[in-house]
């Protein structure tokens, strides 16, 4: 027996909202970054699941890998995002020694 597509999607949904909740709840910038990574991973799972299980529904070829292609792009984005995000965190940390995002509110109106 094979695992149904829905199960994968459900796992991805749960992980996604875990990440979202983390982004909302946690204050530590690094942790928030991690949670964002979780969300990206969840989206990856959904993409791969669809492209492997339902991919051949779309285009004609039975091995349609569109979703996986987008996973590759998501990986790229994630890498760039982490690099720049951490750089920003470090730069901010140099100015005021904290990683709590809600203490960096100079931009408030």
């Amino acid at each position, binding site marked *: 027996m094979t695992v149904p597509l829905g199960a994968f999607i459900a796992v991805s949904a749960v992980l996604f909202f875990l990440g*979202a909740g983390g*982004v*909302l709840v946690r*204050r530590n910038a690094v942790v928030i970054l991690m949670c964002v990574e979780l969300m990206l991973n969840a989206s990856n799972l959904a993409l791969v699941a669809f492209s492997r299980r339902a991919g051949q529904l779309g285009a004609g070829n039975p091995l349609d890998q569109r979703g996986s292609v987008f996973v590759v792009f998501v990986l790229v984005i994630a890498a760039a995002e982490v690099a720049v995000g951490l750089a920003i965190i470090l730069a901010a940390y140099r100015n005021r020694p904290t990683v709590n*995002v*809600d203490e*960096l*509110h*100079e*931009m*408030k*109106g």
Partner: protein
Amino acid sequence: MIHNVWLIPAFPLAAFLINALFGRRWLKRWTGPLASLSIAASALVAIGVFLEVRSGAERTIVPLYTFISVGAFHANVAALVDPLSSAMLLVVTVISFLIHVYAIGYMAHDHGFWRFFSWFPLFVFAMLILVLGDNYLVMFVGWEGVGLCSYLLIGFWFERPEPAGAAKKAFVMNRIGDWGFMIGMITTFLVFGSMNFVDVFERVAKDPPAQGVLSLICLAFFLGATGKSAQLPLYSWLPDAMEGPTPVSALIHAATMVTAGVYLVARSTPLFAAAGPVLAGVGGVGALTAIFAATIALVQVDIKRVMAYSTVSQLGYMFLALGAGAPIAAMFHLITHAFFKALLFLGSGSVIHGIGGVQDMRRMGGLRSKMPLTYWTMVIAGGALAALPPLAGFWSKDEILGSAFKNGYPILWVVGVFTGGLTAFYVTRAIWLTFHGQPRDRQLFEHAHESPRVMTWPLLALAVGSALVGFIGFPPDNGFLHSFLRPALEAGAAQQAIPPEASNWLEFLAFAAISTAVGVGGILLGLSMYSRGRPDPAAVSRAAGPYYDVLVNKYYVDEIYDRRFVGVAKAFAGAAWAFDIHIIDGLVNRLGWAIKLAGGGLRRAQTGIVGNYALSVVAGLLLIMVVYGGYATGWLRR
């Protein structure tokens, strides 16, 4: 050769780019020779094209690239090479070359040397585009281009207020004319669905539109022509344009640009011919301008202004010819006039250069001994202007008058002949006051000197031209020029459609005799007035009294324009300004104030805490889900 016709404008353009980019820092004095060489190159190409056209190649259209292509509207940048444009090319390039060379000497001590020689080729480029364009749009591009260059070059010495003002005046007046041109262009497109000369003329020949529409188009184009060619009522910028450097006056405001109007009308002969009354009007305006400007020229004391008014009046002659249905004669006069008027300007420029920038004839006098070469060339040019046989002006002007009479416009003929007399008089006066008699300003006289070679050789070349160029129109009415231009202007020259009879020597001699007699009369009168003082000029002016004042003040035209138009325009501008400040800006300010208020309120929402923003994003997501789910499940659908 014809298919490389694009080279002709290309050379000046290249010169312009090079000089404008590198002139200031690196090329400096070399900009002048560079520009002249580029013009020489295009002149050579132009000669090649001319010869090829002469050997029978007719009306070739050399497409360069597609300029605009919108829906039904296609405008290609293409060169129309036919006898008319090739002749024009020849004149423009050759004269431009001579004047460029002259300018190297004339502008030698000017700090804006590189600037001058980047704009001068640019002008030539624009003029060539104007001449070459195969449709009204491209022609218009060149038209605006020459307008721009004339503006830049009139205001070349923009440090002084007069040139700046003159430049602005020229630009504004030209704008009025250009507006006419645009109206004509657009109407042409609406009526004929194309702007290409060929198509338009074919359409006119086949199924001409309503007379009214046609007249409208022609009137619009003619308005443009009056603007560019300084005809009534838009002539008054040309005399002021003399504030620019003399080579500019010679090239732009005597030889080439101002003839653009004539070229436009000649080019559109089929149109104008189809709109008879407008054509007559053109002739009338031309005649009026001719005599009007000539009378003003009688009393001017600034040598360059005399030339300027004489230019206006000569242009009047050309329009007269066009109106009289003799476009070939018009072109003929255009060519000859280009030579001798350029020569006159360059000569006076050489005089001004020689005595250190003075233009007032009352301070000159007796310069003949100091600058003989200038003097003799000026005399030749003056003779040509006064239409003394066998100089150039004689043939062309005589042909104009003759054809005017033959085509049944005796009034125009009378006016033309009379104007010829005036012309002869004022040119005599100018030359005499400048070169003869006692020097009226000693120390000026002492420092006077003949101009350098680089200036005098162009003078000589032009003098030869002014003397001989008339013979391209010999024998009268079917000289070389006629047979050359006829195929181009045939379509319109209805009156000349009759195969040219072997020129009728008898009537030619009659006309020649009359006009020459009048001209000589004018010359003799001038000589007697200014050399012997009988009748004494001062006495004459006193006797003339108010009329004299009117002439001196140029019929108060500028003042009238000031009061009538400029005042109105200023009032309107003031009203617009008030509207802008109080209504439009007021609205904007109120709006900004309101937004500032709202922003001040919403500012509180910007907590600066990233978490809140993220939370709001997620809340938005919830909203979207609710709405979408609502529609999907249907309980939101009503």
